[in-house]
């Protein structure tokens, strides 16, 4: 069971913190998925995050998924302006934010319309009744009022006058209507917190902290929150409350972390552990910009951030910094990857350590910038002219982004190569609890600048890694020139020798292939010795596939899971593992990109399970496809 750290979340104010034990019966549940949905201005992200924080404190395992509207300022009350936040909390291990919510909170008709299709049958639907006015219904595209036309019959509907109840709770504070209306989300959070018996301290603390400069607003939000909680307790509407017991979780200090935040911290850790400054050259792009924002704030760390004039300048500046001995990093999403291709090719040729992070989003072209996809894999592999292989690492979960960013830097430096780190919009904004690691346990990142002029040659190579020396400006006696023109073995001097060119192309390819020695033996979840079906996956599909495999195995099916972190080079034991299974299914959010690679590489007759909707797989989709394959 988790408890707040001493003195951190222990709310001092008796009035708000101590909430009486419920007098209604409490029903136990092992897992609940709630989705909060409302207009962009309704504060749904805050509501969802706070509910998550309460659930973490309750000791549940959690997975979350925010869903931002595609347009920055969509007209209020329209479907385009609906913002959502889904949280899955459980008394056992969970890996995904959940397929379909058990509870939907809809703050207006548009939020209802956009989300009702996902709500589980007999699910709990909480709506703010007062927002179902004729005008709002029309704006959301309803011809009749769903609250009265019987279309919601298969759900447990709780239509509550949130605005009126909030106003009532705040009536003597002398606040204007707008301020009162902005407290509605805390009323709802209070209500749902009661319904699931969440500890409220963290929310109380959060409100106090967030609004400490405006006491009247702080008071209003605290009151709304408490009013919502008490409303649940006293109203006749709810016959019982629910509780989800704590999960068995490894002890230690946790924080909730998003993929982008973890990526940023992974880079900071790499800078500190390597003792080299990290330089981020980046151009704002959804959904990668948060990494730039976060790194820009760490000014007392050896972190440089450079908001470049364009995507190309971002990566070029990173390569320039790497030439000078810094860790070069560039962060972007698909359209930016297209633009950076030429510069990445140069980094391959001149062999400098840079990490290019692609937070993949749905394409092609501008596509759906706020929605995830995994369709940049083949671009990462082959999206440069000429033979230009480089290592590719993909993160599996939000917290895994930390370790992958760190590993990407380690590999880049050890092998003197650009590395592509793949994340996606789902990981970037999704959050999970992260057991904060002990810094001393992170693997070392060694930096050995060449300083000895004796026998120095810019393209002489380490015997094992085939890495060339990192010889940085400012080092006497090592003056040398590098560039994109074909270069001679050892000296790097411009050379058009046909045989030298082929040798260098092969040498660089061998260097990258050799990185396979860094990959630990592949973990086969399920039947390591082989079985009926192996689901091969990479990136953010991890949780969904793992849950699907657990489900199938609980039904007695021989289904296993291998999840790849290195997409290039592939693990050296992978081919042999694939052959242990009768069938191999590759699950990915694209048209079959890893599938193409493994079919070409290993001549296995693998097949795909694919989705290109800008949405993560549902567990059921993986399960159904696997069942079909098992029956075929």
């Amino acid at each position, binding site marked *: *069971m*988790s408890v*707040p*750290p001493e003195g951190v*979340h222990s709310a001092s104010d008796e009035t708000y913190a101590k909430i009486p034990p419920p007098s209604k019966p409490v029903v136990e549940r092992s897992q609940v998925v709630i989705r909060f949905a409302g207009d962009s201005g309704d504060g749904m992200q805050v509501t969802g995050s706070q509910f998550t924080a309460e659930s*973490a*404190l309750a*000791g549940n395992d959690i997975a979350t998924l925010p869903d931002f509207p595609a347009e920055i300022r969509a007209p209020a009350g329209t479907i385009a302006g609906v913002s959502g936040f889904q949280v899955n909390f459980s008394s056992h291990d969970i890996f995904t934010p959940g397929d379909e919510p058990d509870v939907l909170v809809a703050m207006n008709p548009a939020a209802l319309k956009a989300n009702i299709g996902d709500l589980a049958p007999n699910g709990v639907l909480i709506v703010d009744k007062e927002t179902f006015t004729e005008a709002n219904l029309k704006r959301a595209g309803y011809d009749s009022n769903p609250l009265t036309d019987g279309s919601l019959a298969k759900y447990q509907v709780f239509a509550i006058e949130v605005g009126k109840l909030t106003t009532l709770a705040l009536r003597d504070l002398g606040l204007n209507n707008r301020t009162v209306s902005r407290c509605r989300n805390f009323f709802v959070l209070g209500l749902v917190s009661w319904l699931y018996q969440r500890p409220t301290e*963290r929310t109380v603390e959060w409100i106090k902290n967030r609004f400490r400069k405006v006491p009247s607003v702080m008071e209003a939000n605290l009151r709304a929150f408490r009013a919502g909680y008490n409303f649940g307790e006293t109203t006749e509407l709810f016959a019982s409350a629910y509780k989800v017991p704590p999960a068995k979780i490894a*002890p230690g*200090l*946790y*924080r*909730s972390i998003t993929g982008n935040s973890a990526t940023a911290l992974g880079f*900071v*850790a790499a800078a*500190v*552990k390597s003792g080299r*400054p990290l*330089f981020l050259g980046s151009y704002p792009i959804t959904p990668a910009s948060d990494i730039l924002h976060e790194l820009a704030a*760490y*000014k*007392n*760390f050896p972190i*440089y951030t*450079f908001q*470049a*004039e*364009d995507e*190309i*300048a971002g990566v*070029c*500046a*990173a*390569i*320039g910094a*790497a*030439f*000078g001995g*810094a860790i*070069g990093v560039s962060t972007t999403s698909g359209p930016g990857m297209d633009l950076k291709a*030429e*510069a990445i090719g*140069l980094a391959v040729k*001149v062999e400098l350590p840079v990490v290019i992070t692609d937070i993949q989003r749905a394409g092609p072209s501008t596509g759906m910038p706020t929605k995830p996809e995994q369709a940049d894999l083949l671009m990462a592999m082959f999206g440069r002219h000429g033979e230009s292989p480089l290592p590719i690492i993909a993160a599996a979960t939000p917290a895994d982004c930390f370790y992958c960013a760190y590993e990407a830097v380690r590999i880049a430096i050890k092998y003197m190569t650009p590395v592509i780190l793949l994340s996606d919009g789902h990981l970037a904004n999704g959050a999970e609890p992260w057991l*904060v*690691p002990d*810094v001393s346990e992170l693997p070392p990142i060694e930096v050995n600048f060449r300083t000895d002029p004796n026998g120095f040659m810019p393209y002489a190579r380490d015997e094992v890694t085939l890495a060339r020396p990192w010889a940085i*400006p*400012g080092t*006497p*006696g090592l*003056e*040398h*020139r*590098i*560039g*994109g*023109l074909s270069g001679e073995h050892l000296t790097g001097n*411009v050379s058009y020798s046909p045989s030298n060119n082929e040798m260098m192309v092969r040498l660089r390819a061998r260097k990258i292939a050799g990185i396979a020695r860094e990959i630990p033996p592949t973990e086969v979840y399920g039947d390591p010795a082989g079985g009926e079906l192996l689901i091969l996956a990479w990136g953010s599909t991890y949780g969904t596939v793992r849950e699907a495999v657990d489900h199938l195995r609980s039904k007695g099916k021989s289904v296993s899971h291998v999840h790849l972190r290195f997409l290039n080079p592939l693990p050296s034991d992978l081919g042999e593992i694939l052959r242990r299974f009768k069938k191999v299914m590759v699950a990915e959010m694209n048209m079959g990109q890893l599938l193409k690679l493994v079919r070409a590489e290993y001549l296995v007759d693998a097949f795909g399970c694919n989705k290109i909707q800008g949405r993560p797989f549902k567990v059921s989709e993986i399960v159904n496809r696997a069942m079909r394959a098992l029956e075929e």
Partner: protein
Amino acid sequence: MASALSRKDFVSDQEVRWCPGCGDYAILAQVQKLMPELGVARENVVFISGIGCSSRFPYYMNTYGFHTIHGRAPAFATGLKITRPELDVWVVTGDGDGLSIGGNHLIHVLRRNVDLRILLFNNRIYGLTKGQYSPTSELGKITKSTPFGSVDYPFNPIAVALGAGGSFVARSIDVEQKHLGEVLKRAHNHRGAAFVEILQNCNIFNDGAFNDLTDKAVKADYQLILEHGKPLIFGKNRDRGIRLNGMRAEVVQLGNGVREEDLLVHDETNLIQAFLLASFEPPLPTPIGVFYAVERPTYDASVNKQLQDARERLGEGDLQKLLRSGDTWVVH
């Protein structure tokens, strides 16, 4: 150590591969000659270039060098200079590299005032790709890609640099060795982005583009040498000058009541005047020298100062503490 160096210490072992007679040779010779005089340790000098004839330059300098990709040299140089502010970083580019494919990077590096020396070799043609018109080629120019004459209005590199907020903007000519050496030295001593347009003859694809300015017999009538604080006088007999007529400049003959005191005096710190001089077209003479030079904070220094201030204020960042920050809870 630096003082003991000579010109040949800056000559690399690579064979220079420009066309015989190319103006680039003269610029290379001048830069190599200048280097020992600058008092910078050789290992601290870096030349960064893009793509084009001019961009082969780093291979011939026995310093650190990076021959990058087309148009992007200012971006590479920016990343290097921010993280290694103690280095003496030079960018070598051309009219195609710097003003066409790399125009965006050039204007932004000038705007930011990154402490770099930027040499733009302007030969008004694409040489490496064998003779297409460039963004500085004159209207009507007949080239391989404009057989009926170019209808593409050209850039004025000095005006572009001034417009982009350059803090040091100058022009010289490949064969004017002494002048070029002085301008480069001024550029080197400038703290901030120092932009130097060097008119360069491509004797293969655009021979004689600057004949008026380089032909000994007539050049004095076409060159207007800018000197801070001095009146604008030119001509073989130094008997003509530039006078303001309202907002416009005009050429006047000295004598007959026109005195030196009536002439415009060059002021490197006057941006409006720098724009005026940049706009000179025949029949006005072509100004060479420093158009504009002012000091303002450099980007690289400002970035590093922010980091230093933060370290002083908050102490060196503690990684473990950072990881354990944010909204945390303990599971027992």
